[in-house]
């Protein structure tokens, strides 16, 4: 497997719950600024979208969901682009529909929200790391484990079979596997 893209600068080798190319600086700056209405509205929308992807939540019968015209309905697992998401050290296995995300940024935010709200930031803190020393990897059609973000989004969603959020230390070894 080729080197992870953008591995030139030290900053880019820092492993965190983020995709190569994004920087933590921008993210934390955003959080520190007082949020205007529009921004919190967007944040709320993203949060809602991410949370909406938890299977079976909110607990509303499919019949009722389907009766609303023009709404995105929760498809059967076979019909949607559902993939399992596991996080090392977490007891929960989630399922998400890749089809609702427009790109890596939204996916990252969705996963961030999803696992954060299940107190996994707690877990990682307990284990001695900061809340962000994780990497998102995925298993593709051939069963290979790849870092998320390398290939164009469209190619990614068609080949991704399963997502795995793993500890930074394990992901570093990814290069040597292939």
């Amino acid at each position, binding site marked *: 497997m080729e080197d992870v893209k953008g591995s030139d600068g030290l900053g880019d080798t820092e492993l965190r719950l983020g995709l190569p190319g994004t920087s933590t600086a921008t993210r934390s700056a955003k959080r520190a600024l007082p949020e205007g209405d529009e921004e919190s509205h967007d944040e709320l929308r993203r949060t809602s979208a991410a*949370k909406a992807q938890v299977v079976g*939540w*909110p607990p*509303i019968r*499919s*019949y009722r969901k389907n009766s609303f015209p023009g*709404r995105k309905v929760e498809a059967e697992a076979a019909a949607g682009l559902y993939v399992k998401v596991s996080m090392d050290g977490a007891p929960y296995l989630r399922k998400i529909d890749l089809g609702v995300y427009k790109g890596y940024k939204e996916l990252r935010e969705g996963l961030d929200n999803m696992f954060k*709200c299940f107190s996994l930031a707690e877990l990682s803190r307990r284990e001695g790391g900061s809340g962000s020393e994780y990497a998102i990897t995925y*298993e593709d059609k051939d069963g290979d484990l790849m870092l998320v973000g390398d290939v164009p989004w469209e190619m990614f969603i068609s080949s991704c079979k399963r997502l795995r959020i793993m500890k930074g230390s394990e992901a570093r070894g990814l290069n040597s596997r292939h």
Partner: protein
Amino acid sequence: MTYFPDEVVEHIFDFLVSHRDRNAVSTVCKAWYQVERLSRRSVFVGNCYSVLPERVMTRFPGMKCLIVKGKPHFADFNLVPHDWGGFALPWIEAAAHGCPGLEELRLKRMVVSDESLELLARSFPDLKALVLISCEGFSTDGLAAIATHCRSLRELDLQENEVEDYGRQWLSCFPDSCTTLVSLNFSCLKGEVNAGALERLVARCPSLRGLKLNRAVSVESLTRILDRAPQLVELGTGSLTVDHHSEAYRRMINTFHKCKLLRNLSGFWDVDPRCLQSVYPVCPNLTVLNLSYAPSIQGADQVKLIRHCFKLQKLWVLDCIGDKGLAVVASTCKQLQELRVFPSDIYGTGTAAVTEEGLVAVSSGCSKMNSLLYFCHQMTNAALITVAKNCPRFIRFRLCILDPGKPDPITNQPLDEGFGAIVQSCKDLRRLSLSGLLTDKVFLYIGEYAARLEMLSIAFAGDSDKGMIYVLNGCKNLRKLEIRDSPFGDAALLENVGKYETMRSLWMSSCDVTLGGCKALAAKMPRLNVEVINEGDESDEMEENPSDAHKVEKMYVYRTLAGPRNEAPDFVWTL
């Protein structure tokens, strides 16, 4: 009692209405068991896999009404794989053989094939009522068979089923000789029915009391139907799209004026808010109103309507009614007993529709409230404590805060105290659904105070095994426990294994229970079916020799006399 002849004992048993009472007397002695079983007319099977159908038929040969429930409740939310089970056919086959005099069949959350419906239609000449709730697997072909062959049919009630529409004119299959219909509900069907056939059917059934139409039925057709059936007590409208300037609209208003007996109103599919005035004449008499399928009605219009409904006992609305709208409900509907507020915008922009304020308002105004289903964006402990004080009569309390694990937004505390107040105050509470940020403490309260609790739904709650243990050790009337995404593991599962034989079922998904734990439970309790449900795909490690330490994704445990299922699909392992 042994000195009384059987007929006298039987007559005394006739006064026992509930299934539980009849079950209880049947265990007193052999004589009573015999009298009871031969005179039992209505049988309720809460879990279709708890007993073999043949056994039920053998025990109750005089059975006239059979009620069976299939899939676990969380199947409603897509947590149970599609082909898990819950088939109606074995029950219908057994009944056809053992109780051909069956008059009523009520099924919930079961897979009902067209083949089953055809068998049903041909096997029971006295069939008077068929009620299917949240079922699937059948089509309009099956309905055509029912309409064609069930000569004594009085009630056909299809509630929220997934029905394939093959365009077969099933309604036209009711023969001209069918004049006995009392209740017909086809609101869940998507396709059109022949308007003429429907109107003629209504016209020839003078005893018709309840009619729930589907979306495809037009206003014109509705008007003609109501003209022929002004005696209706329950009505589910079809599509209420009509130009409010038109003649059709005027005719509809006139017709509604004639429906003096109308007490229950629902439907409102695709309604133009300006047409809502047409139902104002019937509002003062309504006891049940369901607006929950009408997202086009804004809060203000809902409120205008509800202001006329001062006798309302049951109200289902969408959350666009808002807190202010709920305040109007509180001041108008003093007889209100049941309120359900559904979310109108599940995936959208999260504009806060109802909050704790709306609930508090309703609780202050409607002291008779006993049943609640409330989807909201936030809840506070203070509000719940107030609600608990205002409405101590809750039997069902289901709160769903849309954001999982959300704390009290004002104090940032978990909602333990709020729910604790509810269980302490509402001594008759039978059903509870929790949400929001919750620690083990809430379960301590539930175990301690919720003595009459029968069904508990837990999601994203608790800190440790202790939470689940408090519940299992405390709630002595617990029948159904369903848990998802909570940190309860093997220690909790195995703490009180005998408890599960006193319960109907336990569901746990995305918790910390391991395969080893499930195996241990199965080994200790042979009269339970411990089902581990794996929706594995090829890349899943579970497929090849899973270790006992592996966490199970979904587990369903239930007491049974029937042993492990022999028709369970591959992904269901009964340990």
